[in-house]
């Protein structure tokens, strides 16, 4: 069975002509407890501030942002896992807040943490997950090994429990889980963060391969500048919950008169782009 065949069935469930993602003035705040004396005990901290963006079908858009900038919040809102505090978000024409069911059928996601039942094997984790999307055992029996092989997972380890697998391998299984359901919109939330250089490259190559073999739309959140530039048609800069720009990397550099994305990021945000060690949301203190 070919992946393209299953992909087309999903696409037919999308609203004709609607863009893959259409977000306008989207806002999300969280209530944070603060134990420091002299401050209000609870305060609302903004995670997304009036974000608007549009992603066309089959496009790959990368969102660059440091830790705490709101990338995961955006992905969670689009995955129907959070409710917004203002604005709208549509996936293939369906409102993610009021029509979550059709949206769920069209999307899948890979996040930083691999998120599996650790004592279960990769095949077991993938099998039950596929059922939630209505895929029967008769189909997964052949498709799971096939997809695992495609993402470069060593098939002889498919019955080993997840906890024995390296981070890189777990992340490949996470990719396989997302692809298994033939999503038309793939939400990748820092899929390569924390991976060793080789696994990172493999995952990136695989994302590139998905782009050429499927016409799936990809939203890639990352804090890896090179990854964003190499994989995406357009790059957005998300800073403190605000989307400052969203255009092809070349245009972005041109706009800020920068020689590379790091410089462009600095010009846009007024701060240098630091990796990993940047603590969650220091900027709010």
């Amino acid at each position, binding site marked *: 069975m070919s992946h393209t065949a299953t992909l087309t069935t999903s696409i037919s469930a999308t609203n004709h002509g609607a863009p893959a993602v259409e977000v306008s003035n989207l806002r999300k705040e969280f209530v944070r407890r603060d134990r420091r004396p002299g401050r209000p005990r609870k305060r609302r901290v903004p995670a997304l501030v009036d974000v608007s963006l549009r992603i066309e079908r089959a496009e790959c858009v990368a969102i660059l942002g440091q830790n705490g900038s709101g990338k995961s919040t955006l992905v969670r809102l689009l*995955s*129907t896992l959070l409710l917004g505090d203002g604005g709208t978000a549509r996936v293939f024409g369906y409102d993610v807040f009021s029509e979550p069911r059709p949206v769920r059928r069209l999307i899948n996601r890979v996040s930083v943490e*691999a998120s599996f039942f650790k004592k279960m094997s990769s095949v077991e984790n993938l*099998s039950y997950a596929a059922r*939630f999307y*209505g895929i029967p055992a008769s189909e997964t029996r052949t498709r799971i090994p096939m997809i695992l092989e495609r993402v470069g997972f060593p098939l002889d380890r498919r019955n080993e429990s997840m906890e024995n697998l390296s981070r890189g391998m777990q992340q490949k299984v996470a990719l396989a889980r997302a692809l298994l359901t033939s999503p038309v919109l793939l939400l990748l939330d820092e899929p390569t963060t924390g991976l060793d250089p080789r696994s990172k490259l493999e995952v990136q190559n695989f994302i590139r391969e998905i782009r050429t073999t499927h016409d799936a739309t990809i939203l890639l959140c990352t804090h890896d500048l090179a990854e964003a530039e190499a994989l995406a048609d357009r790059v957005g800069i998300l800073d403190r919950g605000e989307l400052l720009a969203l255009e092809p990397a070349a245009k972005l550099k041109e706009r800020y008169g920068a020689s590379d994305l790091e410089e462009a990021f600095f010009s846009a945000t007024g701060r240098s782009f630091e990796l990993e060690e940047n603590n969650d949301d220091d900027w709010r203190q």
Partner: protein
Amino acid sequence: MPGSAATVRAELIGLGGIIERNAYLVKRYALWEVAFFVWTVANTLTIVFIAEGVEASGGSLDVNRQTTILLIGAVIWAYLGIIFEILTETVAWERWEGTIEYTFMAPLSRSVHLFGMGIFAVVYGVARAGLLFGVIAFFFDLEMPQANFVAALVVLGVSSVSFIGIGMMTAVLPLISPEKGTQLGFIAQGMLLVVSGVYYSVDVLPEPMQWLATISPATYALEGIRDAILEGTGVSDLWSQLWPLVVIGAISIPLGLAVFRRGELYAKQHGKLKRSG
């Protein structure tokens, strides 16, 4: 309509997926399951020995009958524990493993998801309760000449509908209170049983607790099962226990689903689905 037939098919496959996943977990944690069963046996023994203990210290009672009454109470306690644990703990467990977001973003409807958990809990719980009952009865060499086990199972089955409904309400607790939600589930289990005459007749309870007993499904479950096992009462004569169970079941399932849905909305509004921000 082919569209809705496809949806029903997808939901049924999803229901199977929930059961399949729980079966994998039982298999992968088999040793733990055995240890947990041994613990339940030990726990049950401490209660069931009470009848012999009372006799040894000079009390006069029908030890065989009293032991059976205690055994039924202890088995129901353990059964209810399993139902609540599977419903509540799996949500908590999924939060801990981080899979919860993947489960909640899947197109499977929440009611089918929760029913799947309920069905698994009942199948697993009945098998475990049967085994527990058998092991302890064998241990004490209990005689139950009149016992109507089929009728007892029918009562247990009908009461399980209510237990699942209540379990759905407690399952939402880990979503709302990530830290203490599971413990609140245990509290609910204890409260339910204390008013339901788990090791004694509800007549001994103070007035307000007796009132609570009339709305607790466990009261009717315990009464019906004791009648079936001690007196050999058949299904047709257990109607006075069965109809309240049917009524409570018919209320608690939709209520349980509604409570869970509200809890899920709350969790999605406040970002509580995930363990950490």
